[in-house]
Every structure is written in structure tokens, then in C-alpha cells.
């Protein structure tokens, strides 16, 4: 049985620690390019909450995108209301390498 104390001990991991279990061969140039000027116009900024790898973050009040941890799902491409995301798959076998999914 799950005891009360165990439930209290339960913890939400940080996304960094969860992503740490994945394997990439990161490309040296980004496969996704974000036009930040359009992000300024974007009110709801769904990418911040919906990119499962948290590649989109808010830094100093502005959107910052980093491609390195991308899991290549395509979500940001599909949800961006401002067409700010230029999206490709990485070349030459680079990017995420799933093993147990």
C-alpha cells in the first residue's frame, strides 16, 4: 500500500533531469529557426507550454528558442499562430535518437 508519507515525498522532476535520459547527436546548425519579431506580437505564446522538451523559454521577457533538445515532434510548427517557426528535420541522421519508445 502507498502510505501517506510516501505520497508526500512524491516529486515532480525537473524537465532537464527528465530529458537527460535521452540521446541526441546534436547538429551544428539549427533545424528550426524562430522569427522572434513575430513572437512579440504573439499574445498567448502556446509554444512555451506545449513544446514537450521546453525548447521555448522566456528570458528577460522575450521568447528564446534552443534547438539542441528538440524531440522533432512538430508541435511548435503546427501551433504557432504567427507562422514564426521555420521548421525542418535535422540532416545526416542528427538530432534525437529514441531507443525505448
Amino acid at each position, binding site marked *: 500500500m502507498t502510505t501517506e508519507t510516501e505520497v508526500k515525498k512524491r516529486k515532480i522532476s525537473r524537465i532537464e533531469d527528465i530529458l537527460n*535520459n535521452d540521446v*541526441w*547527436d546534436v547538429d*551544428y546548425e539549427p533545424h528550426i529557426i524562430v522569427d522572434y519579431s513575430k513572437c512579440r506580437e504573439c499574445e498567448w505564446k502556446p509554444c512555451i507550454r506545449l513544446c514537450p522538451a521546453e525548447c521555448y523559454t522566456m528570458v528577460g521577457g522575450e521568447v528564446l528558442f534552443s534547438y539542441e533538445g528538440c524531440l522533432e515532434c512538430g508541435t511548435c510548427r503546427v501551433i504557432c499562430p504567427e507562422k514564426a517557426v521555420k521548421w525542418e528535420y535535422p540532416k*545526416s541522421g542528427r538530432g534525437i535518437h529514441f531507443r525505448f519508445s
Partner: protein
Amino acid sequence: MPLKIIVGIKWVPNTTSVNIDPKTGTLIREGIPSVVNPHDLTAVEMALKLKDRYGGTVTAISMAPPSALAGLEHVIGMGVDRGILASDRAFAGADTLATSYVLSKVIEKIGEYDLIIMGHETIDSSTAHIGAQVASWLRLPYVYYAVDIEYNEQDRSIIVRRMLENAYETYKVYLPAVVSIAMHTYEPRRVKVSNKLRAKTEDVIQVWTSKDLDIDINCAGLRGSPTVVSAIDFVPKVPRKNLVFKERDPKKAAKWLIDQLIQEGLLEL
């Protein structure tokens, strides 16, 4: 005369993704895919640049288990002409001495070569021995940490620029020679579909066993390896501070970083 180049590539676990089990403190090696040692891709790129400039051939060699064929296919995909895999149970458990011995025998068997290019070091053991040791076995000159190579056809020599901490050294070396390339000097080119197709459909990869090579079996593999790892000590945990610079201006960020380092007594201006 066009250049005949040999490049050494090592098939290594992608150590950038090796994790530590938070519960047991041991490395999790399950399912870690292997890659071509990234610094060797830099070496391959250097070789291909020379081939583009001066003509010739590039042969990739590797001592590894058969799974490394995928690595040879990758570099052939980049434009390497052919690959040779030295693979044999007798080669297993090799230290750098036994590895360089087998590699030098592979190179001897290839016979015709002008230039041997190695990566700077490997991401899985980082000894950077192999280049120097191969050069010793073959009694060739060796230049380490090169960033640029120019070829002089007239007297069959190369001009090698070598990077030091705060200067460059330039050497003139007569071929044949061994050169290792400084990491991150070049971005490796992409694979091409025509080249990948060649790797799959033409006979461009050979696998050589100990029988194919003129080797003393006592100098290969575990038997030929005098190095003993006597203990592994873990680096003590250093308590870390976590400071974040929250603005976006790079100039301000640099200034801030320098100030922090000075404050910590890590930097003097």
C-alpha cells in the same frame, strides 16, 4: 601526384549521453548508441578538403567490432572512397599500444599512402596516444593538433599549421607523415545519398581479420596490452553556485561574467 590519405576513425559510445543512475551512482550504459568519434569526423573533413583541393583518395580505417561498419558507411557517405575494418576477437581488450600496433599493420598492408590523419582524441578515453604511436610504429614524422594542411606537390611535402595556446607553429614535413587534427577545427560535411548508395551497393568496405594482417598475435588485443587500470577515483563533488544572467545583451553578459569570476577570485585583470 595526387594525395593518398588514410584516416583513422573510432566507433565510440555516444558518451555525451551516458548518464548516472541517481540511485546506484553507476553509469547507465543500456542502449547507448555508438557514433563515429566526433573529433574523427573533423579529421575526415580535413582529409576530404585535401582531396577536393589536390585530388587523390581517402581511405578510412578502424579497429572495432563489426557494428562499426555503420560508422564506415557514414564517412563513406561523406565522401571517403573506401573503408577497412580490422575486426577480430583477438583484437578485443586492446589498450592504445595494441590498438596502434594493429592500425599500423593495417596501414602497412594498404601499402601506398602519403598522409595519415587522425582525430585529436576520442570522447570515450581521450588518451590521444594513437596518432603518436602509429607514427612510432611506422617511423614517420608526427604533427599534433594541426588546424591546417597545405600540400606541395613539387617536393611532396606538407605545410602544417599547429595551434598552441597563444600562437601557431608552422612545420614543413616531408611525406609520408602522420598528423592529428585539432578538435572543432572543421564542421564535418553532410552525408550524400549517392555516397551512401555507393557504400551499400559497391564493394568499398573490407573487413580484415588477424589472418589478413602480418601480425604477432601476442602484440594485439588484451595480450598485447601492458596498460593496467589499477583504480578509478571519482572526482569529489564541488559545491556549485547557481547564478543566472537574465538579460539578453551579450556585451553586458560578458562583463557580468567577468565580474563574477573576479569576485570569486578566479580571474585577475
